[in-house]
């Protein structure tokens, strides 16, 4: 089992880079397309996902020996739903403006395939410590991907980063339109694939 030999640090780094949920595993694409129009959105939703992922990973890892295998999926779902309710109420109370901008997506974290997958693949087998670092890696990986997408769309669409004017003009206004999300994600995925192809070719040569 290769997965058991990984140290905490490897687990953490893998989640961000080689097993990045959006660019590599292509899971949880809805928010990546829907609300990646600015870096701030990415940070906020990323934080929410990080919180839910870490908390539910730890919860499941704690009780993993007491869950009957036949009802494990409903248990995961209810655990996630509980933590999503917590973060949903907290965000609605403390950052109401940004919460409104994100619309349904905070509550839809409950249906994210990535969280359930990590619980099934990892947290239900490993102790709390390892599950914590795996959750951190996955959550930060998601946040990182959302921020990259947000940065590309904000910079090319409006010429801004985090609301500060960088370029002074928007070279590609299309990128900031809601419907451009698909195209930007597609182009970014293609770009990362291309980098990988070039990198492998260099290595062989």
């Amino acid at each position: 089992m290769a997965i058991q030999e990984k140290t905490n640090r490897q687990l953490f780094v893998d989640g961000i880079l080689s097993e990045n949920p959006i660019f590599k595993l292509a899971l949880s694409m809805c928010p990546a397309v829907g609300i990646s129009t600015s870096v701030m959105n990415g940070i906020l939703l990323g934080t929410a996902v990080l919180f839910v992922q870490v908390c539910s990973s730890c919860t499941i890892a704690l009780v993993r020996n007491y869950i009957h295998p036949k009802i494990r999926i409903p248990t995961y779902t209810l655990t996630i739903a509980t933590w999503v309710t917590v973060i949903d109420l907290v965000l609605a109370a403390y950052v109401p403006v940004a919460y409104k901008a994100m619309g349904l997506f905070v509550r839809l974290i409950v249906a994210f395939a990535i969280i359930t997958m990590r619980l099934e693949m990892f947290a239900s087998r490993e102790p709390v410590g390892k599950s914590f670092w795996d959750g951190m890696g996955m959550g930060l990986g998601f946040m990182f991907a959302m921020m990259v997408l947000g940065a590309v769309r904000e910079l090319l669409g409006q010429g801004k980063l985090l609301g500060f004017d960088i370029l002074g003009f928007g070279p590609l206004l299309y990128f900031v339109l809601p419907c451009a999300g698909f195209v930007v994600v597609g182009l970014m995925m293609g770009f990362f694939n291309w980098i990988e192809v070039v990198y492998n070719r260099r290595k062989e040569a």
Partner: protein
Amino acid sequence: MKELRRYQWLVGILLVALFLTGCKTGHQFVKKTEFKDSDKIIISFAGPVDEAWATNVGSYAVYEKPDPDIVLNIKGIALNSERTVATITFAAPLNTGEAHILNTTGIMSEGQDLGAGMLTVKKLYIGVLISILLGAALINNFVFTKYLGLCVFFGCSQKRGTAIGMGLVFTIVLSFAAVMAWALYQFVLKPYQLTFLNIVVFIGLVSLSVQGVDTILRKINPALFKAFGVYLVLVIANCIAIAVPLMLADNEYTGWESFSLALGAGIGFLIALFLMACVRERLELAKVPPSFKGLPIAFVVAGLFALAFLGFSGLSIY
């Protein structure tokens, strides 16, 4: 007689339809009241009315049913040449989704006072339902304009057969789940002030209805289950299935409205899947740059569809 009894359900449906479409106006001399454009109300009288009364702005007082304190400003009133149809134009656009109350002073016809009237103006309910359905399917298509359910959308759109199967199963299960979610929300969660449990309850409900359909289908029609059973599990992974219950709770929809929202969402998803599957079958044969093969090019195609679906935003039924 037995023959007739078979058509009882048809009569029932007709009665319901009549009940849904029939609109009360509230005064015997008024035949019909309706909205026109966004800022007009048309009143049809049974006979000619006096022009001096009908075109006097002071004869009418109009307000939205929920807030009777706010009387709307009337810009002008036009009467047709037969003096039977009055068109009231308002200064600001009306919120035609809401029922309006129109109070008149005594209606004057040929010098006779026929008494004051309190008229209700509202859209036909069946029209509201259809506009919710079309809205969810085309104007606010969940995949192309709300960006939901993408995991399943990209996962199941490689072949047309899979796309149709997934779309159909999803529509049926979602309609079930949405009506149950509406009942649970209106009759249990709201009265006991448990609305903060929305997410937990709805996700449980969706999983339950998937399990229910699974069990029933397995017993009743094993052949159908063999063909479509695979897609049932994927319904839970689709975030539209949880978004629809949350939306109908947020907007306080009624039972029928919830049903048509779910049906519209399902049909919209089916349309999106089918369109995408048609393109992706062609893409197999196309020459795509190697790093764009598979998902990346599918995303770009979906982006073009999203742009095309923007065109529906101008569509309106009323």
